[in-house]
């Protein structure tokens, strides 16, 4: 199966290491991703909160472009950013359920020589990795298992809510299962889907940063070595404000925040630079030895 890939703005900016590591990991699994040509903003946050219709129109154009580009019968659009994932899904649901919205959007697309049928399904890379490619394949490819690494799997608020397309809305498990397949240890914690602060860290910092602090402190208290995320904004909030949060709450907060795809790359034995690890503000320097081949003798 071939997938089209919709990056969205974050993957090209603050979430650059997410894109780098994700593409590297898919390529290591021999799974090609073809980027959507001429993609535009998904319509999240700024548009969505002011005019839903404009947000839907932006999403619909992306779907229409995907349908045009899909000459090999692709029907899956991989969307790594949690906000884009939710925004595109929401637009699609509204276009399905509301004829009046659909009529306006169809007209708008037609004026640009485009059309929308709804045959593309929005897929998060976690969903594709675990459910299409499979944990067994991933485990086999993990030549440097993350032995002893205690990971807080953090899904954020948008991945499974409200649509819960591929996991439980309250107790998602795919990332936990993925980390286990990589040889790491997911640490049970109840904050998997609790808000990171979102854009409030920028607008009302005393509220936003407190939310980040709750997550960081709890992960640290549970002895986690790293928090794994699947959302560029979560990663940004949790990582970049750590000095500020430490100062605010008079408590040393120091924990690396990685994209799940970076952890995968490490387990796959890929180099650090192509995984964007050099871009981290809170460095993650751990390395993992190559697993002894099954039945093979240890040297030394």
């Amino acid at each position: 199966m071939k997938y089209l890939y919709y990056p969205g703005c974050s993957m090209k900016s603050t979430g650059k290491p997410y894109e780098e590591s994700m593409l590297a990991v898919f390529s290591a699994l021999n799974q090609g991703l073809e980027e959507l040509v001429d993609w535009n903003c998904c319509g999240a946050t700024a548009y969505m909160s002011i005019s839903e219709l404009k947000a839907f129109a932006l999403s619909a154009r992306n779907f229409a472009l995907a349908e045009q580009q899909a000459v090999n019968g692709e029907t899956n659009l991989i969307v790594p950013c949690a906000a884009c994932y939710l925004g595109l899904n929401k637009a699609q649901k509204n276009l399905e359920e509301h004829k009046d919205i659909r009529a306006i959007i169809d007209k708008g697309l037609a004026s640009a020589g485009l059309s929308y049928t709804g045959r593309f399904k929005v897929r998060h890379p976690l969903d594709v990795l675990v459910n299409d490619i499979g944990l067994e394949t991933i485990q086999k490819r993990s030549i440097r298992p993350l032995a002893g690494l205690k990971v807080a799997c953090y899904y954020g608020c948008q991945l499974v809510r409200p649509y819960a397309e591929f996991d439980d809305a309250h107790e998602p498990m795919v990332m936990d299962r993925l980390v286990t397949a990589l040889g790491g240890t997911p640490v049970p914690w109840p904050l998997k889907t609790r808000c990171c602060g979102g854009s409030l860290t920028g607008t009302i910092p005393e509220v936003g940063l407190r939310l980040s602090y709750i997550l960081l402190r709890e992960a640290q208290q549970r002895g986690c070595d790293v928090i794994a995320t699947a959302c560029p904004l979560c990663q940004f909030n949790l990582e970049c404000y750590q000095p500020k949060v430490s100062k605010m709450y008079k408590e040393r907060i120091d924990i690396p925040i990685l994209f799940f795809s970076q952890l995968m790359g490490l387990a796959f034995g890929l180099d650090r630079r192509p995984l964007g690890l050099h871009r981290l503000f809170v460095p993650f320097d751990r390395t993992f030895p190559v697993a002894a081949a099954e039945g093979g003798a240890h040297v030394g």
Partner: protein
Amino acid sequence: MSAEMSTNGAPKVGVYVCHCGINIAHTVDVNACTAFAASLPYVTVAREYKFMCSDPGQEIIQQDLRDGKINRVVVASCSPLMHEGTFRKATAVGGGNAFMFQMANIREHVSWVTLDKEMATDKAKALIAAAVSRVVHHAPLVRNRVPVHPDVMIVGGGIAGIHAALTMADAGKKVYLVEREPTIGGHMAKFDKTFPTLDCSACILTPKMSAVRSHPNITLWTYSEVAEVSGFVGNFKVKVRRKPRYVKEDQCVGCLDCIDACIYKTAKVPDEFNVGLSKRKPIYVPFPQATPLVAVIDPETCIEFKTHRCKKSCAEVCQKDAIDFTQTEQIAEVEVGSIILATGFKTFDATRIARYGYGKYANVYTSLEVERMVNAAGPTAGEVKLADGSKPKSVAIVHCVGSRDAHTNRYCSRVCCMYSLKLAHLLKERTEAEVYNFYIDMRTPGKGYEEFYDRLLQENVHFVRGRVAEISDWAMEKQEEGKLTIRVEDTLVGVVRRIPVDMVVLSVGLEPQADADDVRRKFNISCSHEGWFLERHPKLAPVSTFTDGVFLAGACQGPKDIPDSVAQAGAAAAEALALIDRGYVELEPNTAYSREELCSSCHTCVALCPYGAITFDTTKHAAVVNGALCKGCGTCVASCPSGALQQNLFTDEQIFEEIKGVLKYV
């Protein structure tokens, strides 16, 4: 037939259009309908009346019959479910045959489903025309009577089944009480105290359990399930699957020596009766007052069944030679006239609400687990303990878990508010902990219930109004560390609270038994969309079902507390007794019959009949219908390729004339 309505000569149809107060007259032009009816062929009388079902209304029909003005009756009024019986009877009292009658439903099918008077009147006319057109082709029919078998079967040995069984048995009827578990007692046997009186559950239940055991009129089959039901009201044949308990029931005296002797020196198997809070051995009795007090061997865990190499010390020690590893499942077959279903409920599976942490945090319990914990005969001998063995200093009781919730069950489970209050009282009494109740609304209607709530308020139990959002073990403040924190919106104060506690009790709701749908199929009754067994009428026939002779008692019909279950069990017993004491049932004559000369011997109908009412007569070379077994479903009639099978009240002619009637007059 000659003594009844004459069918000779031309049909004379009387049409009676009912106003039903304003229920019909408000939407349907009754005058126009009556005038229209008068214009129809064969109609000799057309009248309207405010309430046809009233005595004067029925009298109008009877007088017209007596006067010889009519020999067929059409009443245009409500659904036949309401008053078909009334008008058939009126027709018979007036000297006619009850089946020379047809009803046109212009209320449920017309006036109640539209506001458009013109369209309503048109549809009412069409239905009247159809009824007239059909009734012309009716023939007199006779109801047959069959005797009612005086024995009764009661399925389920909880408090409802027990009470119904004792009531029937005390009235001198022979009762078969069938229970799936190794003992009777049901959920009530697991409780410590009952609300609101706080009397000991076992103390009031166990005398009734032993009364069942010793009653000469009750045959008690525990560890048994109904396998198959056939027949009809008054004459059911029931096959009961009696599972092997590998201990002879008539030999075992309940000394329990076998359990002590079992080669398992310590118990290793999760104990079902203690909802997994303790362990039992492969040979066990569920609890000390189990009835019958007969041991049972669980072949899944018994070494002898797994390896055939056990030294069988249980059998060695038994002085009665009651242990029998060769027992097999037996099928008992009995005939009964009526059946009472009292199969009870199951509690909501709390793992379905992940955010409450059941199964994730050791100190989150369900209410049923806590019932066992506070019970002196339970796994902790009545002590309330946390997973680490210490006493809780604070306990949260979360109401409406799996009730009043669009994601799980919309309905109120009715018992949880009260049992939560009871548990709050018991927890406070046993632990002196701070106890918090988190509720949406307190629902305490019932004798002494509101007073009990008041008493708990006096006992300094905390009440927070709000549905709990989350139970988690992450700490925001120092005092939350190592605790379970309840996050809830206190909707009376309008703030979000975080309340750290040591222990959480989830007040789980009541749900239909997992196999309720199989059971309902077996007994040919209906379920509500939630899966509760459906009563015939929610207000006026609450213990009857749509299958005559099958009655409902207790929580299988919907969530109920003990007093309501017992009351309903008594009502079900009374209905069954009334049926038995009348001694006969009248069979509806709308049965199928075979026009044997047309039968092509294809056998299609024989295989299709769900009631086994059709046999193939090899001498006549034709299918024949047993009228006593036929339920009038019409399956055979519809499937017969040669039209040999017909059904009384639904002959081809009657149905086609009815259709023609509708089409001609629209």
